[in-house]
Each structure stands twice: as C-alpha cells, then as structure tokens.
C-alpha cells in the first residue's frame, strides 16, 4: 500500500502543475516574474517588462515573490531553473536572455504575429518609414 503521506505529496504536486498549466493559457502572453510590471524586483524581470512594453504587448504577469509554491511550481513545470519565464500561446519561450535575443533578431515580432498580436515595435518602425514620403 502507498503510505498516505507520500500519496498526498504526489497529489499535491499534480494539482500544482495543473494549476500552472491553466495559468499559462489564460492570456496569449504570460510572464512569471519577480515583482510586478509597475515595480520589478530584479533586473532580469525588468528587462522582460521593458521588452514587452516596447512591443506594446498586453500580458498576464504573476509575481513569484508573493507565492513560494508558484515560484517552485513554475520551475518544475518548465524544468527551467530561473525567473523570469515567458509563455506565448501556452508554450514556454524562455527566460530573459532568450527573449532579448528574440527581440534583437526579429523573432519576437514573428512569434507575436503567429498568435495575432501586432507588435507596437513594428508599428513604430513603419511610421518612421512612412514619414519621408509625406
């Protein structure tokens, strides 16, 4: 027979991951970070917030500093050791370094486009190009 405590631990683990599985699908872009977008508590989380702001993206942000279970849970869910973590369309995209690189090489604009988000970063660039014609 499975000892009760062990059974409970396994069940707790499963519910936690189910909960996160739902969270990451609640918006097209979902971020797990330290602090909140208005007040990030870590440079890496701040970098992600700044990048998404440049692209004018509407997203869900979850503060892992407010919830120790969430902080560990998200690491278990993605098998990724660090925060922040970015999801697009329920899929794990990466941490700060990856998002920054995707911003630099244009991949982020494409990924956002795939889920029907027009990047504000592109709009700004387009306006710049239009201006000389006027």
């Amino acid at each position, binding site marked *: 027979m499975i000892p009760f405590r062990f059974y409970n631990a396994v069940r707790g683990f499963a519910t936690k991951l189910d909960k996160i599985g739902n969270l990451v699908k609640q918006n097209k872009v979902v971020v797990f970070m330290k602090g909140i977008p208005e007040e990030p508590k*870590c*440079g*890496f989380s701040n970098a992600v917030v700044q990048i998404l702001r440049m692209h004018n993206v509407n997203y869900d942000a979850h503060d892992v500093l407010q919830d120790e279970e969430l902080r560990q849970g998200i690491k278990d869910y993605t*098998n*990724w*050791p*660090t925060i922040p973590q970015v999801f697009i369309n329920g899929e*794990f*995209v*990466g*941490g*700060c*370094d*990856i998002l920054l*690189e*995707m911003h630099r090489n244009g991949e982020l604009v494409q990924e956002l486009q795939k889920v029907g988000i027009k990047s504000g970063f592109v709009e700004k660039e387009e306006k710049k190009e239009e201006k000389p014609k006027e």
Partner: protein
Amino acid sequence: MPYSESYIKNKLIEGLNASHVEVIDQSDGCGAKFSVVVVSDAFEGKPLLQRHRLVNALLEEELKTIHAFSQKTLTPEQWEKQKS
C-alpha cells in the same frame, strides 16, 4: 557554496566540448552571479531554448545556489561572425 570563474569555465568546456568559453563573475566575488558566453559544435542546428537547456542541465547543481545567471550560446560559425 561559492563557485569560481574557472570552475564554471572548465565544467562548460568539458561538458559541451566547447571551443571557447567566457565566464564573468558579476557578484564581486560572492560567486553567485555569472554571465557566460559558450561557443560549441553541440549547439549546431538547435534552437536557442534547447541550447540554454543544455547549459542549464550541465550546471543543474550550481544553479541551485547561483542566483543570477545570464548566457549566450553560439555555434563556432556564429562566433566567428560576431567577432568580425
């Protein structure tokens, strides 16, 4: 436990057969904040997420105590391009 730049560097060179590794300790010596550049054939044909996963897996134990870690993962070809 604090880690040294050379400890991290050696581990990356051995684990990923890296041709070039730069490790910068940004923690003022406390050994818990690092920035790394890794150049390896092992990254060939792999998307960025998979490359970072290779590095994360290799430093699994260390990342439990390192509280800030930044990485750049390049193939030898990309590294040559970036240098020039």
